[in-house]
Protein backbone atom coordinates (compact mmCIF):
# COMPACT_ATOMS: atom_id res chain seq x y z
CA UNK A 1 0.00 0.00 0.00
CA UNK A 2 2.67 2.45 1.18
CA UNK A 3 4.41 2.96 -2.15
CA UNK A 4 1.05 3.36 -3.96
CA UNK A 5 -0.15 5.94 -1.47
CA UNK A 6 3.17 7.79 -1.57
CA UNK A 7 2.98 7.92 -5.37
CA UNK A 8 -0.51 9.36 -5.20
CA UNK A 9 0.56 12.06 -2.73
CA UNK A 10 3.59 12.85 -4.91
CA UNK A 11 1.35 13.27 -7.96
CA UNK A 12 -0.94 15.59 -6.01
CA UNK A 13 2.03 17.60 -4.72
CA UNK A 14 3.46 18.02 -8.22
CA UNK A 15 0.04 19.08 -9.53
CA UNK A 16 -0.51 21.58 -6.72
CA UNK A 17 3.00 23.02 -7.19
CA UNK A 18 2.47 23.29 -10.95
CA UNK A 19 -0.71 25.31 -10.49
CA UNK A 20 0.10 27.25 -7.33
CA UNK A 21 3.71 28.27 -8.00
CA UNK A 22 2.90 30.79 -10.79
CA UNK A 23 -0.05 32.04 -8.79
CA UNK A 24 2.04 32.59 -5.68
CA UNK A 25 4.73 34.26 -7.78
CA UNK A 26 2.16 36.57 -9.39
CA UNK A 27 0.67 37.43 -6.00
CA UNK A 28 4.08 38.07 -4.54
CA UNK A 29 4.97 40.35 -7.47
CA UNK A 30 1.69 42.25 -7.11
CA UNK A 31 2.74 43.19 -3.55
CA UNK A 32 6.10 44.72 -4.60
CA UNK A 33 4.87 48.09 -5.88
CA UNK A 34 6.36 49.89 -2.87
CA UNK A 35 10.12 49.59 -2.97
CA UNK A 36 11.70 47.52 -0.22
CA UNK A 37 8.51 46.25 1.39
CA UNK A 38 5.31 44.35 0.60
CA UNK A 39 2.10 46.38 0.24
CA UNK A 40 -1.31 46.33 -1.37
CA UNK A 41 -0.58 49.55 -3.27
CA UNK A 42 -1.17 47.93 -6.67
CA UNK A 43 -4.63 46.82 -5.51
CA UNK A 44 -5.34 50.26 -4.06
CA UNK A 45 -4.39 51.90 -7.38
CA UNK A 46 -6.57 49.51 -9.34
CA UNK A 47 -9.60 50.01 -7.09
CA UNK A 48 -9.18 53.78 -7.19
CA UNK A 49 -9.12 53.83 -10.98
CA UNK A 50 -12.28 55.20 -12.59
CA UNK A 51 -11.65 53.06 -15.69
CA UNK A 52 -11.53 49.93 -13.53
CA UNK A 53 -14.80 50.76 -11.80
CA UNK A 54 -16.58 51.66 -15.04
CA UNK A 55 -15.37 48.62 -17.00
CA UNK A 56 -16.02 46.24 -14.11
CA UNK A 57 -19.52 47.63 -13.61
CA UNK A 58 -20.19 47.43 -17.36
CA UNK A 59 -19.10 43.78 -17.53
CA UNK A 60 -20.99 42.88 -14.37
CA UNK A 61 -24.24 44.37 -15.67
CA UNK A 62 -23.67 42.71 -19.02
CA UNK A 63 -23.03 39.36 -17.30
CA UNK A 64 -26.24 39.63 -15.31
CA UNK A 65 -28.30 40.46 -18.42
CA UNK A 66 -26.53 37.65 -20.32
CA UNK A 67 -27.41 35.19 -17.57
CA UNK A 68 -31.03 36.34 -17.51
CA UNK A 69 -31.45 36.05 -21.30
CA UNK A 70 -29.54 32.74 -21.32
CA UNK A 71 -31.90 31.28 -18.71
CA UNK A 72 -34.94 32.48 -20.69
CA UNK A 73 -33.64 30.75 -23.81
CA UNK A 74 -32.07 27.61 -22.35
CA UNK A 75 -34.55 26.52 -19.66
CA UNK A 76 -37.68 26.31 -21.86
CA UNK A 77 -35.62 24.70 -24.66
CA UNK A 78 -34.04 22.05 -22.44
CA UNK A 79 -37.39 21.44 -20.73
CA UNK A 80 -39.21 20.99 -24.00
CA UNK A 81 -36.51 18.71 -25.41
CA UNK A 82 -36.64 16.59 -22.27
CA UNK A 83 -40.43 16.44 -22.15
CA UNK A 84 -41.62 16.27 -25.74
CA UNK A 85 -38.69 16.05 -28.14
CA UNK A 86 -36.14 13.65 -26.64
CA UNK A 87 -35.18 12.56 -30.16
CA UNK A 88 -33.80 16.07 -30.78
CA UNK A 89 -31.48 15.90 -27.78
CA UNK A 90 -28.43 15.01 -29.88
CA UNK A 91 -29.00 17.83 -32.37
CA UNK A 92 -29.61 20.42 -29.65
CA UNK A 93 -26.51 19.30 -27.76
CA UNK A 94 -24.47 19.60 -30.96
CA UNK A 95 -25.75 23.14 -31.52
CA UNK A 96 -24.99 24.16 -27.96
CA UNK A 97 -21.43 22.87 -28.33
CA UNK A 98 -20.70 24.95 -31.44
CA UNK A 99 -19.41 27.99 -29.51
CA UNK A 100 -16.68 25.74 -28.10
CA UNK A 101 -15.40 24.72 -31.53
CA UNK A 102 -15.90 27.96 -33.45
CA UNK A 103 -13.29 30.53 -32.35
CA UNK A 104 -14.68 33.72 -30.83
CA UNK A 105 -12.84 35.77 -33.46
CA UNK A 106 -14.79 33.99 -36.22
CA UNK A 107 -18.08 34.53 -34.44
CA UNK A 108 -17.49 38.23 -33.85
CA UNK A 109 -16.47 38.85 -37.45
CA UNK A 110 -19.64 37.08 -38.47
CA UNK A 111 -21.61 39.39 -36.19
CA UNK A 112 -19.92 42.48 -37.57
CA UNK A 113 -20.64 41.33 -41.11
CA UNK A 114 -24.28 40.53 -40.31
CA UNK A 115 -25.05 43.50 -38.05
CA UNK A 116 -22.56 46.10 -39.32
CA UNK A 117 -23.58 49.67 -40.10
CA UNK A 118 -24.29 48.82 -43.74
CA UNK A 119 -26.45 45.78 -42.98
CA UNK A 120 -30.25 45.52 -42.74
CA UNK A 121 -30.03 45.42 -38.95
CA UNK A 122 -27.15 47.82 -38.13
CA UNK A 123 -26.76 46.99 -34.44
CA UNK A 124 -23.14 48.16 -34.35
CA UNK A 125 -24.18 51.65 -35.43
CA UNK A 126 -25.46 52.56 -31.97
CA UNK A 127 -24.05 52.05 -28.51
CA UNK A 128 -27.14 50.26 -27.25
CA UNK A 129 -27.23 48.08 -30.37
CA UNK A 130 -23.59 47.10 -29.90
CA UNK A 131 -24.25 46.35 -26.21
CA UNK A 132 -27.16 44.12 -27.22
CA UNK A 133 -24.99 42.42 -29.85
CA UNK A 134 -22.25 41.81 -27.27
CA UNK A 135 -24.80 40.42 -24.82
CA UNK A 136 -26.23 38.01 -27.41
CA UNK A 137 -22.68 36.99 -28.33
CA UNK A 138 -22.03 36.21 -24.66
CA UNK A 139 -25.27 34.20 -24.47
CA UNK A 140 -23.83 32.13 -27.30
CA UNK A 141 -20.47 31.77 -25.57
CA UNK A 142 -22.13 30.67 -22.33
CA UNK A 143 -24.51 28.29 -24.10
CA UNK A 144 -22.45 25.08 -23.71
CA UNK A 145 -22.12 25.63 -19.96
CA UNK A 146 -25.62 26.91 -19.29
CA UNK A 147 -27.31 24.19 -21.39
CA UNK A 148 -25.30 21.38 -19.84
CA UNK A 149 -25.91 22.58 -16.30
CA UNK A 150 -29.66 22.98 -16.86
CA UNK A 151 -29.98 19.72 -18.75
CA UNK A 152 -28.19 17.76 -16.03
CA UNK A 153 -30.45 19.29 -13.40
CA UNK A 154 -33.54 18.45 -15.48
CA UNK A 155 -32.40 14.85 -15.78
CA UNK A 156 -32.18 14.58 -12.00
CA UNK A 157 -35.91 15.27 -11.56
CA UNK A 158 -38.87 13.42 -13.06
CA UNK A 159 -39.86 16.21 -15.45
CA UNK A 160 -42.69 14.33 -17.12
CA UNK A 161 -44.45 13.20 -13.95
CA UNK A 162 -44.06 16.57 -12.22
CA UNK A 163 -45.45 18.29 -15.31
CA UNK A 164 -48.40 15.91 -15.48
CA UNK A 165 -49.04 16.24 -11.75
CA UNK A 166 -49.16 20.02 -12.13
CA UNK A 167 -51.35 19.79 -15.24
CA UNK A 168 -53.82 17.57 -13.41
CA UNK A 169 -54.01 20.34 -10.80
CA UNK A 170 -55.06 22.80 -13.50
CA UNK A 171 -51.68 24.48 -14.07
CA UNK A 172 -50.74 25.92 -17.47
CA UNK A 173 -47.33 25.79 -19.05
CA UNK A 174 -46.00 29.04 -17.51
CA UNK A 175 -47.10 28.06 -14.01
CA UNK A 176 -45.45 24.68 -14.45
CA UNK A 177 -42.24 26.21 -15.76
CA UNK A 178 -41.88 28.99 -13.20
CA UNK A 179 -43.38 27.39 -10.08
CA UNK A 180 -42.45 23.73 -10.50
CA UNK A 181 -39.55 23.24 -12.90
CA UNK A 182 -37.41 26.34 -12.26
CA UNK A 183 -37.26 25.99 -8.46
CA UNK A 184 -36.34 22.33 -8.79
CA UNK A 185 -33.44 22.93 -11.18
CA UNK A 186 -32.18 25.96 -9.28
CA UNK A 187 -28.80 24.35 -8.63
CA UNK A 188 -28.25 23.71 -12.34
CA UNK A 189 -29.29 27.23 -13.29
CA UNK A 190 -26.97 28.73 -10.68
CA UNK A 191 -24.07 26.58 -11.87
CA UNK A 192 -24.67 27.75 -15.44
CA UNK A 193 -25.07 31.33 -14.25
CA UNK A 194 -21.77 31.41 -12.32
CA UNK A 195 -19.89 29.80 -15.20
CA UNK A 196 -21.39 32.36 -17.58
CA UNK A 197 -20.44 35.14 -15.18
CA UNK A 198 -16.85 33.89 -15.01
CA UNK A 199 -16.64 33.78 -18.82
CA UNK A 200 -18.24 37.17 -19.45
CA UNK A 201 -16.33 39.12 -16.81
CA UNK A 202 -12.93 38.58 -18.44
CA UNK A 203 -13.89 38.11 -22.09
CA UNK A 204 -11.69 40.12 -24.46
CA UNK A 205 -12.25 39.25 -28.15
CA UNK A 206 -15.92 40.15 -28.52
CA UNK A 207 -15.70 43.29 -26.40
CA UNK A 208 -12.55 44.53 -28.07
CA UNK A 209 -13.68 44.02 -31.68
CA UNK A 210 -17.11 45.48 -30.94
CA UNK A 211 -15.32 48.35 -29.18
CA UNK A 212 -17.19 48.07 -25.89
CA UNK A 213 -15.81 49.43 -22.57
CA UNK A 214 -15.70 46.02 -20.89
CA UNK A 215 -13.37 44.61 -18.23
CA UNK A 216 -11.51 42.32 -20.66
CA UNK A 217 -10.12 45.12 -22.86
CA UNK A 218 -9.32 47.12 -19.69
CA UNK A 219 -7.23 44.19 -18.40
CA UNK A 220 -5.36 44.08 -21.68
CA UNK A 221 -4.77 47.85 -21.67
CA UNK A 222 -3.41 47.83 -18.14
CA UNK A 223 -1.28 44.79 -18.91
CA UNK A 224 0.38 46.62 -21.80
CA UNK A 225 1.17 49.83 -19.92
CA UNK A 226 1.73 49.05 -16.21
CA UNK A 227 4.03 46.76 -14.17
CA UNK A 228 2.37 45.73 -10.87
CA UNK A 229 -1.31 46.46 -11.51
CA UNK A 230 -1.75 43.66 -14.11
CA UNK A 231 -0.56 41.13 -11.49
CA UNK A 232 -3.04 42.53 -8.97
CA UNK A 233 -5.80 42.34 -11.58
CA UNK A 234 -4.84 38.75 -12.48
CA UNK A 235 -5.11 37.74 -8.82
CA UNK A 236 -8.47 39.53 -8.54
CA UNK A 237 -9.74 37.77 -11.66
CA UNK A 238 -8.66 34.43 -10.18
CA UNK A 239 -10.36 35.26 -6.89
CA UNK A 240 -13.55 36.16 -8.75
CA UNK A 241 -13.51 32.91 -10.72
CA UNK A 242 -12.84 30.92 -7.57
CA UNK A 243 -15.72 32.68 -5.85
CA UNK A 244 -17.97 31.63 -8.74
CA UNK A 245 -16.74 28.04 -8.48
CA UNK A 246 -17.29 28.10 -4.73
CA UNK A 247 -20.84 29.33 -5.25
CA UNK A 248 -21.42 26.50 -7.76
CA UNK A 249 -20.25 24.04 -5.11
CA UNK A 250 -22.48 25.71 -2.55
CA UNK A 251 -25.63 25.65 -4.67
CA UNK A 252 -24.77 22.73 -6.91
CA UNK A 253 -25.75 19.94 -4.54
CA UNK A 254 -28.71 18.94 -6.70
CA UNK A 255 -32.39 19.30 -5.98
CA UNK A 256 -34.00 17.80 -2.92
CA UNK A 257 -35.22 14.39 -3.81
CA UNK A 258 -37.70 11.89 -2.48
CA UNK A 259 -34.94 9.74 -1.10
CA UNK A 260 -32.71 12.07 0.79
CA UNK A 261 -31.67 15.51 1.80
CA UNK A 262 -29.54 17.72 -0.34
Amino acid at each position, binding site marked *: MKSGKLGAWLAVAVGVAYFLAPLIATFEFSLRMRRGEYSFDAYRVVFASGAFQASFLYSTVLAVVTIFVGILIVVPTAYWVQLRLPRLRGIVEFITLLPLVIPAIVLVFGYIKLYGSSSILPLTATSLGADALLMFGYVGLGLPYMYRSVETALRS*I*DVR*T*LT*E*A*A*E*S*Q*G*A*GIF*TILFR*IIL*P*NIRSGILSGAFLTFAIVIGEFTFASLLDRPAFGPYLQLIGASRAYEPSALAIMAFALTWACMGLIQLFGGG*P*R*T*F*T*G*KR
Partner: protein
Amino acid sequence: MSFLNLTGIQKAYGPNKVVKDFDLSVERGEFVTFLGPSGCGKTTTLRMIAGFETPTEGSIRINDKDVTHLRANRRAIGMVFQAYALFPNMTVAQNIGFGLKVAGKPAAELQARVEEMLAMIKLPQLADRYPYQLSGGQQQRVSLARALAPSPQILLLDEPLSALDARIRVSLREEIRALQRKLGITTIFVTHDQEEALSMSDRIVVMNDGAIEQVGSPSEIYNEPSTRFVASFVGTLNLIDGKIVDASVGAVDIDGQRATTRRKLNGAKPGDVLAMALRPEALRLGAGSDDRNTLAGVIEDVAFLGAVVRVRVRLERAAIIVDTFNSGANDLPTRGASVAVNFGRDDLIPLHAH
Protein backbone atom coordinates in the same frame (compact mmCIF):
# COMPACT_ATOMS: atom_id res chain seq x y z
CA MET B 1 -76.17 8.51 -19.50
CA SER B 2 -73.29 7.33 -17.32
CA PHE B 3 -70.93 9.80 -15.69
CA LEU B 4 -67.86 8.69 -17.63
CA ASN B 5 -68.17 7.18 -21.09
CA LEU B 6 -65.37 5.81 -23.20
CA THR B 7 -66.60 4.91 -26.64
CA GLY B 8 -64.63 3.07 -29.31
CA ILE B 9 -61.30 4.17 -27.87
CA GLN B 10 -58.25 3.21 -29.90
CA LYS B 11 -54.69 4.26 -29.32
CA ALA B 12 -51.84 3.52 -31.69
CA TYR B 13 -48.20 4.56 -31.77
CA GLY B 14 -47.35 4.15 -35.42
CA PRO B 15 -48.37 0.64 -36.43
CA ASN B 16 -48.45 -0.51 -32.80
CA LYS B 17 -52.00 -0.54 -31.43
CA VAL B 18 -51.85 -0.35 -27.63
CA VAL B 19 -55.57 0.12 -26.91
CA LYS B 20 -58.22 -1.52 -29.07
CA ASP B 21 -62.00 -0.99 -29.21
CA PHE B 22 -62.27 0.10 -25.60
CA ASP B 23 -65.88 0.76 -24.55
CA LEU B 24 -66.76 1.47 -20.95
CA SER B 25 -69.39 3.36 -18.97
CA VAL B 26 -68.73 4.32 -15.37
CA GLU B 27 -71.47 5.51 -13.04
CA ARG B 28 -71.10 8.48 -10.72
CA GLY B 29 -69.42 7.43 -7.47
CA GLU B 30 -68.29 4.07 -8.83
CA PHE B 31 -64.85 2.59 -8.09
CA VAL B 32 -63.62 0.87 -11.24
CA THR B 33 -60.28 -0.90 -11.52
CA PHE B 34 -58.31 -1.54 -14.70
CA LEU B 35 -56.50 -4.80 -14.04
CA GLY B 36 -53.97 -6.43 -16.30
CA PRO B 37 -50.32 -7.31 -16.81
CA SER B 38 -47.65 -4.78 -17.79
CA GLY B 39 -48.13 -3.48 -21.31
CA CYS B 40 -51.84 -4.38 -21.51
CA GLY B 41 -52.86 -0.75 -22.15
CA LYS B 42 -54.43 0.01 -18.76
CA THR B 43 -52.20 2.97 -17.94
CA THR B 44 -52.49 4.34 -21.49
CA THR B 45 -56.29 4.26 -21.15
CA LEU B 46 -56.05 6.04 -17.79
CA ARG B 47 -53.75 8.65 -19.32
CA MET B 48 -56.28 9.24 -22.10
CA ILE B 49 -58.96 9.90 -19.47
CA ALA B 50 -56.55 12.28 -17.72
CA GLY B 51 -55.79 14.09 -20.98
CA PHE B 52 -52.09 13.21 -21.15
CA GLU B 53 -52.67 11.13 -24.28
CA THR B 54 -55.13 11.67 -27.11
CA PRO B 55 -57.06 8.70 -28.48
CA THR B 56 -56.33 7.82 -32.10
CA GLU B 57 -60.06 7.09 -32.43
CA GLY B 58 -63.12 7.22 -30.20
CA SER B 59 -64.49 9.67 -27.68
CA ILE B 60 -64.33 10.35 -23.95
CA ARG B 61 -67.28 12.04 -22.26
CA ILE B 62 -67.34 13.18 -18.65
CA ASN B 63 -70.65 14.30 -17.19
CA ASP B 64 -72.13 14.43 -20.70
CA LYS B 65 -69.36 16.70 -22.01
CA ASP B 66 -66.98 15.59 -24.74
CA VAL B 67 -63.46 15.99 -23.34
CA THR B 68 -61.62 13.90 -25.95
CA HIS B 69 -59.49 16.83 -27.09
CA LEU B 70 -59.70 18.96 -23.96
CA ARG B 71 -56.33 19.76 -22.37
CA ALA B 72 -55.44 17.94 -19.17
CA ASN B 73 -55.46 21.10 -17.07
CA ARG B 74 -59.07 21.85 -18.06
CA ARG B 75 -60.58 18.47 -17.19
CA ALA B 76 -60.93 18.88 -13.42
CA ILE B 77 -59.45 15.47 -12.80
CA GLY B 78 -57.37 14.52 -9.77
CA MET B 79 -54.55 12.09 -10.32
CA VAL B 80 -52.31 10.11 -8.00
CA PHE B 81 -49.11 8.75 -9.51
CA GLN B 82 -47.09 5.67 -8.71
CA ALA B 83 -44.00 7.81 -8.03
CA TYR B 84 -46.00 10.20 -5.76
CA ALA B 85 -44.96 13.20 -7.90
CA LEU B 86 -45.07 15.67 -5.02
CA PHE B 87 -43.43 18.98 -5.87
CA PRO B 88 -40.05 18.78 -4.09
CA ASN B 89 -39.75 22.55 -3.66
CA MET B 90 -43.06 22.85 -1.79
CA THR B 91 -44.12 21.87 1.71
CA VAL B 92 -46.92 19.37 2.29
CA ALA B 93 -49.42 22.22 2.79
CA GLN B 94 -48.22 24.00 -0.36
CA ASN B 95 -48.48 20.78 -2.35
CA ILE B 96 -52.05 20.21 -1.19
CA GLY B 97 -53.00 23.82 -1.84
CA PHE B 98 -51.34 24.00 -5.26
CA GLY B 99 -54.45 23.26 -7.32
CA LEU B 100 -56.54 25.70 -5.31
CA LYS B 101 -53.91 28.40 -5.71
CA VAL B 102 -53.78 27.81 -9.47
CA ALA B 103 -57.58 28.13 -9.50
CA GLY B 104 -57.23 31.50 -7.75
CA LYS B 105 -59.08 30.57 -4.56
CA PRO B 106 -58.95 33.15 -1.73
CA ALA B 107 -56.26 32.55 0.88
CA ALA B 108 -58.75 31.84 3.69
CA GLU B 109 -60.63 29.25 1.64
CA LEU B 110 -57.35 27.68 0.55
CA GLN B 111 -56.08 27.48 4.11
CA ALA B 112 -59.31 25.91 5.36
CA ARG B 113 -59.35 23.32 2.59
CA VAL B 114 -55.70 22.40 3.15
CA GLU B 115 -56.39 21.90 6.86
CA GLU B 116 -59.45 19.81 6.02
CA MET B 117 -57.40 17.64 3.66
CA LEU B 118 -54.57 17.24 6.18
CA ALA B 119 -57.08 16.12 8.79
CA MET B 120 -58.64 13.74 6.28
CA ILE B 121 -55.31 12.00 5.64
CA LYS B 122 -54.50 12.17 9.36
CA LEU B 123 -51.25 14.10 8.86
CA PRO B 124 -52.01 17.59 10.22
CA GLN B 125 -48.65 17.69 12.03
CA LEU B 126 -46.71 17.38 8.77
CA ALA B 127 -48.01 20.53 7.06
CA ASP B 128 -44.62 22.26 7.04
CA ARG B 129 -42.52 19.26 6.06
CA TYR B 130 -40.98 18.84 2.62
CA PRO B 131 -41.64 15.68 0.58
CA TYR B 132 -38.12 14.37 1.14
CA GLN B 133 -38.82 14.37 4.87
CA LEU B 134 -41.76 11.96 4.51
CA SER B 135 -42.00 8.19 4.20
CA GLY B 136 -43.40 6.62 1.03
CA GLY B 137 -46.79 6.00 2.63
CA GLN B 138 -46.99 9.57 3.91
CA GLN B 139 -46.02 10.94 0.51
CA GLN B 140 -48.74 8.93 -1.17
CA ARG B 141 -51.32 10.15 1.37
CA VAL B 142 -50.28 13.74 0.64
CA SER B 143 -50.48 13.00 -3.08
CA LEU B 144 -54.04 11.74 -2.54
CA ALA B 145 -54.95 14.85 -0.56
CA ARG B 146 -53.48 17.06 -3.27
CA ALA B 147 -55.52 15.26 -5.93
CA LEU B 148 -58.74 15.60 -3.91
CA ALA B 149 -58.27 19.18 -2.66
CA PRO B 150 -59.69 20.94 -5.75
CA SER B 151 -62.78 18.64 -5.62
CA PRO B 152 -62.19 16.96 -9.00
CA GLN B 153 -64.91 15.28 -11.04
CA ILE B 154 -62.96 12.04 -11.24
CA LEU B 155 -60.07 10.60 -9.26
CA LEU B 156 -57.49 8.62 -11.23
CA LEU B 157 -55.08 6.35 -9.37
CA ASP B 158 -52.15 5.06 -11.40
CA GLU B 159 -50.72 2.11 -9.45
CA PRO B 160 -50.47 4.29 -6.33
CA LEU B 161 -49.54 1.41 -4.03
CA SER B 162 -46.90 -0.30 -6.14
CA ALA B 163 -43.92 1.52 -4.66
CA LEU B 164 -44.93 0.84 -1.04
CA ASP B 165 -44.06 -2.08 1.19
CA ALA B 166 -46.67 -4.79 1.74
CA ARG B 167 -47.96 -3.72 5.16
CA ILE B 168 -48.47 -0.07 4.18
CA ARG B 169 -49.99 -1.16 0.88
CA VAL B 170 -52.76 -3.02 2.64
CA SER B 171 -53.54 -0.25 5.13
CA LEU B 172 -53.44 2.47 2.47
CA ARG B 173 -55.72 0.60 0.09
CA GLU B 174 -58.28 0.34 2.89
CA GLU B 175 -57.91 4.06 3.57
CA ILE B 176 -58.28 4.94 -0.11
CA ARG B 177 -61.43 2.86 -0.42
CA ALA B 178 -62.93 4.32 2.77
CA LEU B 179 -62.20 7.85 1.56
CA GLN B 180 -63.66 7.13 -1.84
CA ARG B 181 -66.86 5.80 -0.26
CA LYS B 182 -67.07 8.78 2.08
CA LEU B 183 -66.57 11.35 -0.68
CA GLY B 184 -68.55 9.41 -3.28
CA ILE B 185 -66.05 10.37 -5.96
CA THR B 186 -65.94 8.48 -9.25
CA THR B 187 -62.62 6.66 -9.24
CA ILE B 188 -60.54 4.77 -11.77
CA PHE B 189 -57.77 2.67 -10.28
CA VAL B 190 -55.02 1.01 -12.29
CA THR B 191 -53.19 -1.99 -10.92
CA HIS B 192 -51.59 -5.27 -11.90
CA ASP B 193 -52.24 -6.66 -8.42
CA GLN B 194 -55.37 -8.83 -8.45
CA GLU B 195 -55.71 -8.75 -4.67
CA GLU B 196 -55.90 -4.94 -4.74
CA ALA B 197 -58.43 -5.07 -7.56
CA LEU B 198 -60.62 -7.66 -5.86
CA SER B 199 -60.57 -5.99 -2.46
CA MET B 200 -61.20 -2.39 -3.54
CA SER B 201 -63.40 -2.31 -6.62
CA ASP B 202 -67.09 -2.03 -7.41
CA ARG B 203 -66.21 -3.30 -10.88
CA ILE B 204 -63.07 -4.65 -12.47
CA VAL B 205 -62.06 -4.24 -16.10
CA VAL B 206 -59.60 -7.01 -16.94
CA MET B 207 -57.39 -6.00 -19.87
CA ASN B 208 -55.03 -7.96 -22.04
CA ASP B 209 -53.08 -6.89 -25.09
CA GLY B 210 -54.90 -3.54 -25.34
CA ALA B 211 -58.43 -4.97 -25.21
CA ILE B 212 -61.02 -5.62 -22.53
CA GLU B 213 -61.22 -9.31 -21.62
CA GLN B 214 -64.03 -9.03 -19.09
CA VAL B 215 -65.90 -6.41 -17.07
CA GLY B 216 -67.64 -7.41 -13.88
CA SER B 217 -67.86 -7.23 -10.11
CA PRO B 218 -64.95 -8.78 -8.20
CA SER B 219 -66.98 -11.90 -7.45
CA GLU B 220 -68.03 -12.25 -11.10
CA ILE B 221 -64.46 -11.86 -12.26
CA TYR B 222 -63.20 -14.37 -9.74
CA ASN B 223 -65.99 -16.91 -9.77
CA GLU B 224 -67.11 -16.69 -13.38
CA PRO B 225 -64.12 -15.80 -15.53
CA SER B 226 -65.23 -15.67 -19.13
CA THR B 227 -61.87 -16.28 -20.77
CA ARG B 228 -58.83 -18.37 -20.16
CA PHE B 229 -56.78 -15.21 -19.66
CA VAL B 230 -59.07 -13.83 -16.93
CA ALA B 231 -59.20 -17.20 -15.21
CA SER B 232 -55.44 -17.52 -15.17
CA PHE B 233 -54.68 -13.89 -14.30
CA VAL B 234 -57.09 -13.54 -11.38
CA GLY B 235 -56.24 -15.88 -8.54
CA THR B 236 -54.61 -19.31 -8.60
CA LEU B 237 -56.36 -21.63 -10.98
CA ASN B 238 -56.39 -25.14 -12.39
CA LEU B 239 -56.70 -25.10 -16.17
CA ILE B 240 -57.58 -28.50 -17.58
CA ASP B 241 -58.81 -29.81 -20.92
CA GLY B 242 -62.33 -31.26 -20.96
CA LYS B 243 -63.48 -33.37 -23.90
CA ILE B 244 -67.22 -32.92 -24.53
CA VAL B 245 -69.19 -36.14 -24.14
CA ASP B 246 -72.76 -34.82 -24.11
CA ALA B 247 -73.19 -31.05 -24.15
CA SER B 248 -76.91 -31.25 -23.34
CA VAL B 249 -76.23 -32.64 -19.86
CA GLY B 250 -72.84 -30.99 -19.44
CA ALA B 251 -70.91 -34.26 -19.47
CA VAL B 252 -67.17 -34.00 -20.11
CA ASP B 253 -64.21 -36.34 -20.05
CA ILE B 254 -61.20 -35.21 -17.98
CA ASP B 255 -58.16 -37.43 -18.44
CA GLY B 256 -60.40 -40.47 -18.97
CA GLN B 257 -62.66 -39.69 -15.99
CA ARG B 258 -66.24 -38.45 -16.24
CA ALA B 259 -67.33 -35.11 -14.81
CA THR B 260 -70.39 -32.89 -15.21
CA THR B 261 -70.80 -29.14 -15.32
CA ARG B 262 -74.00 -27.18 -14.87
CA ARG B 263 -72.55 -24.30 -16.83
CA LYS B 264 -73.39 -23.72 -20.50
CA LEU B 265 -71.10 -25.35 -23.01
CA ASN B 266 -72.05 -22.84 -25.72
CA GLY B 267 -72.90 -25.20 -28.55
CA ALA B 268 -69.89 -27.44 -28.16
CA LYS B 269 -70.15 -30.74 -30.00
CA PRO B 270 -69.19 -34.20 -28.70
CA GLY B 271 -65.45 -34.67 -29.16
CA ASP B 272 -64.65 -30.96 -28.87
CA VAL B 273 -61.96 -30.13 -26.33
CA LEU B 274 -62.62 -27.08 -24.13
CA ALA B 275 -60.32 -25.40 -21.62
CA MET B 276 -61.96 -25.62 -18.21
CA ALA B 277 -61.15 -23.84 -14.97
CA LEU B 278 -61.28 -25.17 -11.43
CA ARG B 279 -60.48 -22.94 -8.45
CA PRO B 280 -58.17 -24.77 -5.98
CA GLU B 281 -60.31 -23.69 -3.04
CA ALA B 282 -63.43 -25.25 -4.65
CA LEU B 283 -61.83 -28.71 -4.53
CA ARG B 284 -61.99 -31.08 -1.57
CA LEU B 285 -60.01 -34.18 -0.84
CA GLY B 286 -62.01 -37.42 -0.61
CA ALA B 287 -64.93 -38.86 -2.51
CA GLY B 288 -67.93 -36.56 -2.88
CA SER B 289 -71.64 -37.22 -2.75
CA ASP B 290 -73.53 -38.24 -5.90
CA ASP B 291 -74.39 -34.65 -6.87
CA ARG B 292 -70.69 -33.76 -6.95
CA ASN B 293 -67.90 -34.73 -9.33
CA THR B 294 -65.15 -37.03 -8.07
CA LEU B 295 -61.80 -37.58 -9.78
CA ALA B 296 -59.14 -40.05 -8.71
CA GLY B 297 -55.44 -39.29 -8.68
CA VAL B 298 -52.15 -39.54 -6.82
CA ILE B 299 -50.70 -36.91 -4.48
CA GLU B 300 -47.64 -35.51 -6.16
CA ASP B 301 -46.69 -32.70 -3.80
CA VAL B 302 -47.81 -31.11 -0.53
CA ALA B 303 -46.95 -27.53 0.45
CA PHE B 304 -47.73 -26.18 3.90
CA LEU B 305 -48.56 -22.44 3.51
CA GLY B 306 -49.76 -21.69 7.03
CA ALA B 307 -53.50 -21.16 6.83
CA VAL B 308 -53.68 -23.23 3.68
CA VAL B 309 -52.26 -26.63 2.74
CA ARG B 310 -51.71 -26.83 -1.01
CA VAL B 311 -51.84 -30.34 -2.47
CA ARG B 312 -50.92 -31.15 -6.08
CA VAL B 313 -52.77 -34.19 -7.40
CA ARG B 314 -51.72 -35.94 -10.61
CA LEU B 315 -54.67 -37.30 -12.61
CA GLU B 316 -53.13 -38.78 -15.70
CA ARG B 317 -51.66 -36.11 -17.90
CA ALA B 318 -53.14 -33.18 -15.97
CA ALA B 319 -52.21 -32.11 -12.47
CA ILE B 320 -54.60 -30.12 -10.29
CA ILE B 321 -53.96 -28.05 -7.19
CA VAL B 322 -56.23 -28.47 -4.17
CA ASP B 323 -56.21 -25.83 -1.41
CA THR B 324 -57.47 -27.04 1.95
CA PHE B 325 -57.64 -25.06 5.18
CA ASN B 326 -55.16 -26.02 7.83
CA SER B 327 -57.40 -27.27 10.65
CA GLY B 328 -54.47 -27.80 12.95
CA ALA B 329 -55.55 -31.32 13.87
CA ASN B 330 -55.03 -33.17 10.62
CA ASP B 331 -51.84 -34.74 9.53
CA LEU B 332 -50.58 -33.54 6.17
CA PRO B 333 -51.51 -35.73 3.19
CA THR B 334 -48.78 -38.13 2.13
CA ARG B 335 -46.93 -37.84 -1.16
CA GLY B 336 -47.55 -40.77 -3.48
CA ALA B 337 -50.85 -41.73 -1.83
CA SER B 338 -53.91 -42.39 -3.98
CA VAL B 339 -56.58 -39.79 -3.38
CA ALA B 340 -60.04 -38.76 -4.55
CA VAL B 341 -60.82 -35.13 -5.29
CA ASN B 342 -64.39 -33.83 -5.40
CA PHE B 343 -65.97 -30.59 -6.54
CA GLY B 344 -69.43 -29.18 -7.27
CA ARG B 345 -70.94 -29.19 -10.73
CA ASP B 346 -70.98 -25.38 -10.76
CA ASP B 347 -67.27 -25.27 -9.99
CA LEU B 348 -66.20 -26.66 -13.37
CA ILE B 349 -66.08 -23.53 -15.56
CA PRO B 350 -65.79 -23.89 -19.36
CA LEU B 351 -63.73 -21.02 -20.80
CA HIS B 352 -64.15 -19.28 -24.11
CA ALA B 353 -61.24 -18.82 -26.42
CA HIS B 354 -60.53 -15.09 -26.87
